[in-house]
């Protein structure tokens, strides 16, 4: 099947796949096809093992990559979307709601990038405005009130940089959203399922467990933004991506994420079903691992988790006089 959008490093693999399918259709002996299949597998392994940080950024932004709505659609039963921040508007760049995950009621919040131009206009490319963060905050408080575990899906280039967003207090909205998530006394599982772009991503990312798919990325600033500041040109984004250490392996070694969720060999978009299943299993395992914690212990656990992040020397407390 032809894929609608191809990244440069996907091309040779897709060409070979198509060739094998053609040969299979004209009755090529199975033994010959098996050799080609083995070659394809080896080539796939080779290319994906050597992907640069920048190529992984492209992969995590792949337009066909499963999004929050795909995960909700497959993993959540009886999903009831909740809309609006009760103050200004409903921001469609963040989806929030309640539903049932494998028999358990949960609250869900996630960024939603659009698939089409029309949807991207409606959802602002998944870049929330203050009302989006205030809607998420409302959901977290609702979840806390009714003791529902929280699952968040992170996938955004960042919070919307715009005049209207500044007028309505983008900074305060993000900070308050972080505070709300830090305070809740229910389990919080956060998954980066695409692009984790700076504070706009972190606002949904204060989890007891923070997980990242193998080809997802998480960064303090977009590689383009970093390159613009350092070298005055976004053309050097590939260098910035490398310096910023945005890949799952790097983030894991820096202690920023707790686990890497397995992803199909060529990325989630190639086999969404399997990617979604892995994410579902990871959510279930994470919730299970938090089951023994009391409400207060859950908040304390989250505090300790983030409290421990950072690297410095000379750190012995020195507040006693």
């Amino acid at each position: 099947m032809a894929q609608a959008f191809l990244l440069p490093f996907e091309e040779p693999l897709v060409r070979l796949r198509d060739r094998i399918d053609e040969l299979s259709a004209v009755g090529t002996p199975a033994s010959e096809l098996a050799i080609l299949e083995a070659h394809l597998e080896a080539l796939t392994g080779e290319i994906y093992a050597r992907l640069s940080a920048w190529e992984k950024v492209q992969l995590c932004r792949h337009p066909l990559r499963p999004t929050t709505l795909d995960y909700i659609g497959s993993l959540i039963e009886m999903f009831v979307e909740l809309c609006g921040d009760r103050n200004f508007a409903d921001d469609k760049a963040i989806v929030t709601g309640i539903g049932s995950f494998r028999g358990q009621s949960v609250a869900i919040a996630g960024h939603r990038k659009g698939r089409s131009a029309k949807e991207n206009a409606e959802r602002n490319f998944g870049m929330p405005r203050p009302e989006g963060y205030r809607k998420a905050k409302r959901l977290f408080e609702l979840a806390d009130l009714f003791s529902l575990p929280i699952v968040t899906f992170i996938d955004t280039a960042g919070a919307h940089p715009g005049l209207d967003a500044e007028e309505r207090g983008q900074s305060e909205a993000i900070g308050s959203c972080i505070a709300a998530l830090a305070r809740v006394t229910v389990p919080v599982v956060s998954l980066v399922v695409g692009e984790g772009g700076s504070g706009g991503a972190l606002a949904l990312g204060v989890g007891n467990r923070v997980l990242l798919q193998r080809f997802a990325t998480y960064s303090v600033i977009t590689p383009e933004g970093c390159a613009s500041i350092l070298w005055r040109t976004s053309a050097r984004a590939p260098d910035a991506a490398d310096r910023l250490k945005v890949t799952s392996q790097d983030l894991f070694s820096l202690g920023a994420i707790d686990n890497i969720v397995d992803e199909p060999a060529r990325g989630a978009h190639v086999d969404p079903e399997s990617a979604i299943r892995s994410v579902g299993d990871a959510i279930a395992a994470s919730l299970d691992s938090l089951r023994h914690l009391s409400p207060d212990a859950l908040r304390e656990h989250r505090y300790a988790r983030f409290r421990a992040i950072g690297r410095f020397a000379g750190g012995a407390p020195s507040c006693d006089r």
Partner: protein
Amino acid sequence: MNPNPFKKCDGCGVILMATLFVHGVCPECEHHHSIGHKAWLDLLLDEGSFAAWDDKLTPTDPLNFVDDVAYPARLASAQKKTGLLDAIVSGRGNIEGRAVVYTASAFEFMGGSMGSVVGEVITRAFEHAVTHSLPIVLLSASGGARMQEGILSLMQMAKTVAARERLRDAKLPFISVLRHATFGGVAASFALQGDIHLAEPKALIGFAGPRVIEQTIGQTLPEGFQRSEFLVEHGMVDRIVHRHRLKGEIATILRLLGR
């Protein structure tokens, strides 16, 4: 070397004896110039009352970050320039006799950016405030999260905000003073989570930088955009306070809050 005895105002352009710019404020147009971390301390705290906390915390280079200059070289030059180990000053001091935790960004150290050390010192400041049952006066001036420490800088946003929430639970006041300029990961974490927000006149405060916004919306921004006055107008800041009246105003607020 004698420093230049004259200073030109960045606001109105007048050239006067430098000593006339008391605490960096132009006597002609009241323009507030940036002043250093020592000057801030002198401005707000009672003489001799300050005792530094957590001032041995030293940044490292967890990402081996190199652009045109390696991160350790940038740190070394900022340390030499400022006499600080990182972009933050924190400790205990008195404001008109009232004990407070005093924590202040040093904008002159890599734009006041927040990496692991700044995040840790601010987190500890909130924790010390709870331990010692003191209010906190926190002065922000920062370009945001420090790129050179990557994801670790981003995570300081969650760490500091969570610590701020502990202060809220302890019912201790957090007075946030917003200085020129406060942006990005500092604005979007603790800086705009104060119980009371005071801002310096005409300070630039926002989430995204004006240049980024102009590129996004493809038009020039209105005059006064993201200035303190704009934030008051949009309900994000309680009061704009002249630098010469800041100490007195903070003391009054502490007194009214029973501290």
